């Protein structure tokens, strides 16, 4: 999970940040939400690369009721020595594709439909497929997102649903 408000104060963050595009700000070694609601330190990737990756993750699996921090958590593992070269190269290709369509960079592409169009153009690439495949577990297997979809997870510890509404549907 990203560290909420990190080791930086909210004020420090906002003072020291520059806009990365989209809803993100970046500074030396971190990415934050533009309102500094959360921040994530990055060690191996360029902060702007991580911001772009988070945006890409949201564009692949957009859920408007999920905050950015869940997408950040889903891709955080790519901030590693092993993954960084492939991710930097993949994001560079993504930005090149955006530039080719007349946008400044992927994250500066303001409409989702334009970003999705860029992604469609590279959806068979190993980079895209790695990121997409990783998100299937990285995003949806976060226990913190389950309640946001109504999913209740395990029920054994509560004795199952035998007395807790396994048949409580009232509209059928």
């Amino acid at each position: 999970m990203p560290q909420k408000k990190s080791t930086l104060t909210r004020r420090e963050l906002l003072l020291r940040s520059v806009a990365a595009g989209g809803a993100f700000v970046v500074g030396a070694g971190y990415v934050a939400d533009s309102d500094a609601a959360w921040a994530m330190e990055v060690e191996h990737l360029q902060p702007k690369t991580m911001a772009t990756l988070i945006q890409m993750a949201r564009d692949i699996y957009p859920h408007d009721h999920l905050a950015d921090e869940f997408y950040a958590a889903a891709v955080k593992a790519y901030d590693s020595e092993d993954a960084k070269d492939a991710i930097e190269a993949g994001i560079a290709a993504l930005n090149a594709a955006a530039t080719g369509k007349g946008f400044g960079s992927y994250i500066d592409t303001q409409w989702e439909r334009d970003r999705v169009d860029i992604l469609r153009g590279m959806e068979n690439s190993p980079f895209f497929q790695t990121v997409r495949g990783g998100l299937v577990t990285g995003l949806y297997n976060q226990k913190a997102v389950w309640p946001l979809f109504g999913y209740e997870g395990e029920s054994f510890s509560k004795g199952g649903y035998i007395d807790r509404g396994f048949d409580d549907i009232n509209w059928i």
Partner: protein
Amino acid sequence: MAAPFELTDDSVVVIIGTGAGGGVLANELAQKGISVVALEAGGRYLPEDYINDEWESFGQLAWLDARSTSGDWRVADDFSGLPAWIVKAVGGTTTHWAGASLRFQDHEWKAKTNYGDVQGANLLDWPIDPREMDDYYTKAENKLGVTRTGDRTGLPGNNNFKVFEAGAKALGYSEVHTGRMAINSTENDDRMACQQTGFCFQGCKWGAKWSAAYTDIPRGEATGNLEVRDRAHVLKIEHDDSGKVTGVLYADADGNQHLQKARIICVAGNSIESPRLLLNSASSMFPDGLANSSGQVGRNYMRHMTGSVYAVFDKPVKMWRGTTMAGIIQDEARHDPSRGFVGGYELETLALGLPFMAAFLDPGGWGREFTSALDGYENMAGLWIVGEDMPQETNRITLNHDLKDQYGLPAPNVHFDDHPNDVAMRNHAYKQGMAVYEAVGATRVFPTPPYPSTHNLGTNRMSEKARDGVVNKHGQTHDIANLFISDGSQFTTGAAENPTLTIVALAIRQADHIAAQMVNGTL
């Protein structure tokens, strides 16, 4: 007390695999006083060990050894290294199964006769009369405690069932109920009743669902005649100059290899591993693999015609609550070629948790079409389609010499192409399944592609004549008298029904046969 047997003891029956076939056979033989060594590749897990978390449980129980896929089935694209979702553990896939326990319909035992010549299909009649199976089915139902059989009542219907039932009735279906399930509706056989917890696929933590892991296996061990060695992965079956099998080479948990001698060997590693083991046991005497004079070992791989339909409504369903497979529509299970295909299919409710729904709803899908579906997860209902698929010689398990398992042995490749009959049946079933939900107000429906196979059948099939298959009507290989097949790979054809009850009934029957042959000295 589990009986320890010496590696050099050549009087024992060795059973490879401890699932619905091997686990039941082991206990049935042990109850008759026969000495059995059961070798299980997986570890031993009991209800207290099961994990009600889809991915974590998958990591604990699933068979994840190297495998490859080919063919036009979508699984080969979406899950290329995971052709099947089956279990590597004591009790095998009886840990994971949903519990649906249906008898074959009479006509399904004689598919060739009743369906006629279907181009491209390698159809054959089972060499068994359906009436021979009646008593064995009853024994199997009693062993498993199947609801709606004997004097056992049905399970109560959960939310997912209520939506399904209302839609079915609106369509005019009449054979709709909460299923014949090996899940206790009341306390039975020293196991408690279903607590409607969900997670049936992850191992029942209450023990309400029958699994060999905590019934037949410990009961067999309690006789003193059965020794189960877990984490014992069989690599090769050995034979003597006369062509009789004599023992098995296996690797223990530390990778050390041992040779267990045997009087009789029964292979029950499921329809991928069983033929693979026969093929990997090729010798100068049997260069094409053991019991393969017909060339049919590994062929006629069936996986049932499957698919799912999920539907989103404008109000909550919470389908994950309660029994995973909570009900059935049987009206389409009949053989009625006027629908454009031979054989039939069942519709059975199914629920996945959010993590698996994300993985299986539309594998590879992304963007708002995909995510808006998951946004409706709480309002979703679901069903699974299971129908008879056509055996085809070219659908088969072969050895992939370019891919090795952890022991350096060629991994299995699973090749599957849909037969046109499978496609026609699936399209019909999608249409009917979607109509069930649309009849009760679904706002969106999803014809979801097949998951990695849980019903793996047919790769060592039963045949009257030795040239048509691998085993005779008792599961005894045509070529080698003391070598048996004891799992779903015996299936001549797949029928429309979930296969476990039939695998169990055949195992009980096979135990009678083996015991009789041992007594009269034939084996």
